[in-house]
């Protein structure tokens, strides 16, 4: 992916100095200068063997490195002219860590942390087996059809020479690329087998145009949307197998998240879903785009379905139920539980005959993931973990036997849990403790396992400090932390979030955990954290956010409304320890809604410091961590 943005390639080497990277990140060599196109990003290519037909790379390189004029076929598929191709590639470079922008859209979504229903959709489809190889290229395929409808179909012929072009270059390509090529060819064969009406078009289109259209994906989308949407619907009518065109188009949008205010798609999602969800009544208008379901009835329903859900592994099923009931709540524990369940899935996995482990296992995992999403929307950290796991699966060499692959995958998961969570926590605790001095009054909000470790460690070091635990509804999880700390003999003060401005006078530091840290430095965390940080900021108290770097994400977010999770509204109606709640029958009241937000977004300027295992950084440096270490975390 790198040769297309030479400016970015040079950057990291300069910036790297400022941060505490002990050595150059392992993958630095790949993103070498643009002068060495053949060695470009083999790793990112290998992430998606199916979806990356190599010819495009070759042709791409060719057109850039050799300075050849862009072939006619390229222009055909890149609706905007070559200039915008450049623009497109630069805009792509903005999404610093998108695992491999060169992947085809569907693979990208699959690997991405964002588990939109789209990705689920794709997973399900790929589940069905025979389309698995076809679909990634499906969009390009239809695009070529569109093109043939839009313009004179004679242009299609022009693509064929393009396909031949890269051949001399092939000898230079890396191993990974060669493998990717093989798989692309396999994919092409599979499409041929499917044998749709326009077979000849399809075969010619799948391999070559697939590549040409990709670099310009974003500009394509913007400019085409007008006339091509019409044509694509035409195609839809003509070709039943290409229903996904419209969806694929949407899929390319930067946040590939399911918007639940889109009725059509909600309907479709419902048909697929395993967990029977009934839409909550009295939903908040502002949050129609988020899923909100009635609680309480899914569990029994799901339990009764246990023996029918043969495609869900029992371990995954168990974890899903735990998510649903809220037994596992913290992001770290959720992530570990999920990974361990997947480990079991992998252990019990056998490749069906005539299938390839990498692909079949991915689809199997995808169905598990979609089940988990139905139980509770994934956290960003879990998305990252899944992305890692898939990257590992796709990297398994074909030569490896099944058992070897399984063993290596399981050990990878173990290593991920160990390095990214357990060890990272230890390092963070070590960092954070240096910021606790005698006489400090530390304020923490809610309950974070990491903060708890920090406080207990500081206590073990015999630092003299006091802890203020601020708690709030809906979860009142601060009590759990309070109990643990009081049992260990720490001096604690407990209060509720409204009193935070009262208590803030005596506080010297605020420690909070985070569900995720986003690329613009905002902290995505338990609802209320933003309030705490804001008040602390107003009283000039430093706010330290402790977060493992596996929770970092390249997404950006400005407010807490666009992306969030809705909890059970009944929790709000019931005040603990109060018998007569006046909101008991809230659902029957017209015009009354209860909103139980799960997360909020803390602006970066309220945060003094983010403590990660890579060191203590200002929030402005988050994108650097995401870029420098994010890729590595996919690779490990």
């Amino acid at each position, binding site marked *: 992916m790198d040769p297309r943005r030479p400016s970015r390639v040079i950057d990291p080497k300069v910036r790297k100095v400022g941060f505490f990277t002990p050595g150059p990140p392992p993958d630095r060599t790949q993103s070498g200068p643009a002068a060495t196109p053949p060695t470009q990003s083999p790793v990112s290519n290998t992430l998606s063997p199916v979806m990356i037909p190599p010819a495009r790379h070759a042709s791409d390189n060719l057109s850039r490195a050799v300075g050849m004029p862009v072939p006619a076929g390229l222009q055909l598929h890149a609706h905007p002219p070559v200039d915008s191709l450049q623009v497109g590639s630069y805009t792509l470079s903005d999404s610093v860590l998108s695992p491999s922008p060169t992947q085809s859209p569907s693979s990208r979504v699959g690997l991405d942390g964002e588990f939109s229903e789209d990705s689920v959709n794709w997973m399900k489809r790929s589940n069905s087996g025979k389309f698995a190889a076809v679909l990634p290229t499906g969009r390009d395929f239809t695009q070529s059809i569109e093109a043939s409808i839009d313009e004179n179909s004679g242009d299609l012929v022009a693509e064929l020479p393009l396909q031949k072009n890269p051949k001399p270059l092939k000898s230079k390509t890396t191993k990974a690329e060669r493998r990717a090529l093989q798989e692309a060819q396999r994919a092409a064969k599979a499409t041929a087998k499917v044998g749709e009406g326009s077979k000849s078009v399809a075969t010619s289109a799948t391999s070559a145009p697939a590549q040409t259209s990709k670099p310009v994906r974003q500009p394509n989308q913007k400019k085409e949307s007008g006339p091509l949407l019409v044509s694509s619907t035409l195609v839809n009518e003509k070709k039943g197998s290409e229903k996904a065109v419209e969806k694929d188009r949407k899929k390319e949008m930067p946040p590939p998240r399911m918007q639940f205010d889109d009725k059509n798609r909600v309907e479709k999602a419902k048909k697929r879903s395993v967990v029977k969800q009934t839409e909550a009544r009295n939903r908040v208008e502002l949050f129609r785009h988020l899923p909100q379901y009635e609680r309480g009835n899914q569990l029994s329903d799901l339990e009764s379905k246990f023996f029918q859900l043969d495609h869900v592994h029992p371990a995954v099923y168990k974890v899903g139920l735990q998510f649903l009931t809220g037994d596992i709540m913290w992001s770290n524990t959720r992530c570990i539980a999920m990974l361990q369940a997947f480990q079991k899935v992998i252990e019990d996995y056998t490749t069906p005959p005539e299938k390839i482990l990498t692909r079949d296992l991915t689809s199997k995992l995808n169905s598990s993931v979609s089940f988990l999403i139905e139980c509770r929307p994934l956290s960003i950290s879990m998305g990252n973990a899944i992305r890692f796991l898939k990257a590992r699966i796709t990297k398994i060499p074909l030569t490896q036997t099944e058992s070897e692959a399984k063993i290596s995958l399981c050990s990878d998961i173990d290593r991920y849990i160990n390095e990214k969570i357990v060890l990272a926590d230890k390092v963070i605790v070590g960092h954070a403790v240096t910021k606790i001095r005698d006489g400090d009054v530390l304020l923490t909000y809610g309950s974070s396992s990491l903060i708890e470790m920090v406080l207990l460690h500081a206590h073990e070091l015999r630092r003299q400090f006091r802890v203020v635990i601020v708690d709030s509804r809906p979860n009142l999880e601060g009590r759990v932390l*309070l109990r643990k700390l009081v049992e260990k003999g720490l001096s604690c003060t407990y209060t509720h979030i409204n009193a935070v401005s009262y208590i803030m006078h005596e506080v010297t530091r605020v420690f909070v955990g985070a569900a995720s840290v986003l690329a613009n430095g905002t902290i995505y965390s338990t*609802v209320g954290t933003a309030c705490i940080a804001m008040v602390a900021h107003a009283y000039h108290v430093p706010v330290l956010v402790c977060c493992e770097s596996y929770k970092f994400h390249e997404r950006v977010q400005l407010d807490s*409304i666009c992306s969030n999770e809705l909890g059970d509204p009944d929790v709000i109606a019931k005040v603990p320890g109060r018998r007569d709640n006046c909101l008991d029958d809230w659902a029957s009241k017209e015009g009354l809604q209860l909103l139980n*937000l799960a997360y909020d977004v803390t602006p970066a300027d309220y945060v003094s410091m983010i403590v990660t295992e890579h060191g203590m950084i200002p929030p402005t440096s988050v994108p650097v961590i995401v870029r420098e270490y994010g890729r590595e975390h996919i690779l490990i």
Partner: protein
Amino acid sequence: MLDTNALVHDFLNKLKRRQIEGSKATAKLTAELLRSVISQQRLPNTNQAGALIDAIKAIGEQLVAANPVELAVGNIVRRVLHIIREEDLSLTTSAIGGLSLSAISDDENDVEQDNYPVLSAAAVAAAARNALRAPSLQTLLEGVPHSAAVLHSNSSADDSEEKTKSTDKNSRSRKLKHNVIETVNDLIQDIATCHEEIAEQAVEHIHHNEVILTLGSSRTVIEFLCAAKEKKRSFRVFVAEGAPRYEGHILANELISRGLQTTVITDSAVFAMISRVNMVIVGAHAVMANGGVIAPVGLSMVALAAQRHAVPFVVLAGIHKLCPLYPHKPEVLLNELKSPSDLLDFGEFSDCMDSATGIGFPLHVVNPAFDYVPPQLVTLFITDTGGHNPSYMYRLIADYYSADDLVLQRKPTS
């Protein structure tokens, strides 16, 4: 006398036990109590107003001491004192129309030496304010002699009737008492209906399709929102529930019953939601002279969030909440810590207590009742007299309180 003593004692106990809640209820009860005290007070033949003021001050001091956090008590005491002074002044000015200047000035000197040696500065300030009150061109042109006369007659008003002729005394004493009670009745009436007057202004502030956020529950806020609703404005209200008392639930119920679109959110979601809010409308516990607000706990957070997102923060306050004091460390000194049982059950952590080996008591539960919102976070006050800037509050105080009464405590020497 016994009767009033019993009444006062009863009220004091209620205040001490915090059985009276809400500044409005307290204000009303205080005014009623003072009214009965005044009506039963036997006035001497001379210096009636002075005697009355002394009596009220004595009771007021006790009342304030009973619940120093409930500023409404002090406000009402001061209001009543102010009423007495005003009534007395109007009587005096009508009666002594042509009294000689020299006599008064003598008297004034006496007074300053006798009663108000320390407050002389305040008296001067009051005089200046009175001069301010009639800023007509005429007073300006007539210049010093006239304003001096006003000054003297004002600051010595309470004692000046000593010098008046005894023939007027009986009728005047009755008249003073009568007038004072009349005005106190008006005051009680004002307190009772202040939210109506505030609510009348709702249409001027709430527009169609607005989103309004409020926290906790306040009668004034309910009336305000409902008044806007009755005027056919359709808007949406976010109600933060207001831990630990969760009065927001009551407010939400009330609003729903009046047909308003209501969404209940947790207090922690205030920051998340405020970006979509057009206006924050809240009630207050007391408004300080600098424009700061003593508000139900949690509002400081809301005000900060509103400032961050440039959302207008509007405080509704009846004029009886206006306190003529300037706050010092209000979040501590004018605050009250409620029972920890609102947050944690008493038994909940008893098992941990035993195992705790730390020195001293390892667990504190803090449950303050009020928050202080500094004036720079408040966009607008809406009182029964209209909307005001926080910076204008000190000026309102001059209208309702006499500068002599700002300090209610009598000096230990007198």
